[in-house]
């Protein structure tokens, strides 16, 4: 395993990770999972600077506020 656990917000553009846990409230977790962001999915970061983190997951592009993005923990894939 090369995966150390980091929050999504720590990934640089182009880096990929596999979602492990989501540390958010129930409503938000349901919303994220229904959007296809659920444990086990591989996500790729498209942009990550000051605003929301933009990722690709299940073939779609998703913008996540920095607060949410810091609560989604992923295993880095190299």
């Amino acid at each position: 395993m090369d995966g150390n656990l980091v929050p999504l917000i720590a990934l640089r553009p182009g880096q990929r990770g596999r979602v492990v846990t989501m540390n958010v409230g129930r409503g938000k977790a349901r919303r994220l999972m229904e959007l296809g962001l659920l444990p086990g999915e591989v996500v790729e970061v498209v942009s990550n600077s000051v605003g929301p983190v933009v990722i690709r997951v299940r073939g779609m592009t998703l913008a996540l506020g920095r607060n949410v993005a810091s609560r989604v923990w992923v295993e880095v894939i190299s």
Partner: protein
Amino acid sequence: MSEVLVALAGSPNVGKSTLFNRLTGGDVHVANWPGVTLQRAEGKTEHHGIVLRIIDLPGTYSLSAQDIGEKIAREFIVEEKPDVMVIVVDATSLEKSLYFAVMALELYQKAVIALNMIDAAEKRGIHIDIQGLESKLGVPVVPVSALKGIGLGVLLDRILDVAQGRVRTYPLRVDYNGLEPFIHEVERLLRERGVLDKYPSRWAAVRLLEGDEVLLDELKKIDPELAEKVNSIRERARIELGEDPERIAISSRYSLIDEIVCSTVTRVKLAAPTLTEKLDELMLHPVAGPIVSVLLILFTFFLIFAVNTGFPLNILFDHMGYSELAALIEEYSLSGILGSLFDWLSSALSEWLTSMGYADWLVGLISDGIIGSIGTLASFIPLLLMAYVFLGAMQDSGLFPRAAVSLDNLFRRFGLSGRAFFPAALGMGCSVAAVVSTRAMDDDRERMVTAMASPLIPCQARLLVLLALASAAFTNPLEQSALTVSIYFLSFVLYLLVSKFLNKFVFKVEYAPDLVMELPPYHRPSLRVIWWYARSNTEHFVKKAGLLIFVLGVATWFLLNFGPSGYLSQGDISKSYAAILGNLLTPVTSLIGLPDWKYALAFEVGFVAKEGLLITFSSITGAADPVEALRSMGITPLKAVSMALAMNYYVPCLATVAALFSELRIGKYVLLTVVIEIVLALLLAGTAYWIGILMGFS
């Protein structure tokens, strides 16, 4: 079968409204971001002699009844039991849009899948095995392109097949793995007690285990004891499985989707959407993104301004020495031409009516009160059409959601997320649309705050008044556009500041909600989609204008021409009822440098609708062209600035107030919105006026 009821359902942004417009000839709002449709729309079409009543539902990611859109969609399906539910999915991203389809098919099996955007899928080398999909899902699947009009006949055939029972459909069964024994347990309990029987029992059992609050509440009301029991089964499942049942349910659905996609979708070439990547590099850039977003909006107004006034061509020609040509361009700008046309029409008509021997007052009513007002508003139609075409193109392009993302960081300082960009942007079209669009907000407080602040953004009606004021009081096009652009800029600033104020002092929460939003791929704006948007909005304007002219135009004409002493044949309007009404408000308007009762009257009429300001000016002066009308009232640059500020903020129009009531449902907040606007208007216009006086203007 007399009439077939068809519902269009699916994830957001998959093209339901496009399909609706195509099938029914309608023109509901189509745009490229998730969450455009927020109220159901209805239309009709006929196929093989059978009438189909078609309902466009709000797009939702699931049927959890978590937000307003999901509630509307779910209630419609459960309560009204459509003859056929058309589930629209996006062929370019089945991995995602099938989630709704799976949920919906578990709930309702009289369905047809419209595999939309098949044109885009083919372009990207995505091949889908239709028969394979049909056998996996148990319902007919029809590839269509709502945008290009492909496959619609076949879709209608299949809809009728299902409605009339010629094609059998099968329920979809998701394997919920470890959750299955618990599902059976709950299902048995529901059956035994015979409750929640309007839902399929398996579906209800799964939803209850997932913790569906709406369903649990419903159960609690009929059978509190059973609700308790279900809750304890859910707890037991959580402990025994070591995982949240909801998560198991959602992943099980996605596993099924992965399996379906794996066996039915083949990608010939991995065509990277390079345009999206290139544009996103710019739009999502921390500095360039927000700047480009703001420039795009300002550019819209620059363009409108150019058409209206001939700017910058007139300046250009002037500098090149063709000053006559420049003057000609100014005079023959679109609204100039139409304005003079109606002036001519009104005087010709009045001559003719007089020669026919009609009474003076009747001639006046028809030629000034009606034709004049029609002219005033008609002269703006080309301008509005232009503005709507441009806004429509931007909305269909996919730029708006990027603008929302890039402005998120700025908006956070005011306790809003980037989502708050949508009501502001739509508000430039119409404040009512802006207020309704706040339904798409996930966060309840943000929804209320933006609904209350969005009427600050100048709508098209206010743009018209603004342009008339700018052109009447300033001759230099640079000054004219400076006034217009600064009002818009100020309005956006106020939108943010008022939101911050409401967050801090009314709702007492200051953190900004987090943005969670899907970014759809860009695409070339479709002329058809732009046309729908421009047509429906212009039509709305014309209908409203027609009503306003007959109500306001005629009313102000009577007020102006009658007074306590009867018909004022001498035309001395200072003794009219209008003057009396206007004078009620002059103590207030004097504060902002507009002591003339004529302005006060315009403000009063403008509360009904902001176009009323222009109608009043024309009725008072008898000039159809509002620019001329304002000039003959002796408008000065300072008065124009004060009026522009006051007019823009003094109160939302009647329709917006009504929309606020129905969205907020709290009278106190609506009242607060109105008070904030009045205070802002007086404060800003007053300050501008008195600073101007100190600087020596008049």
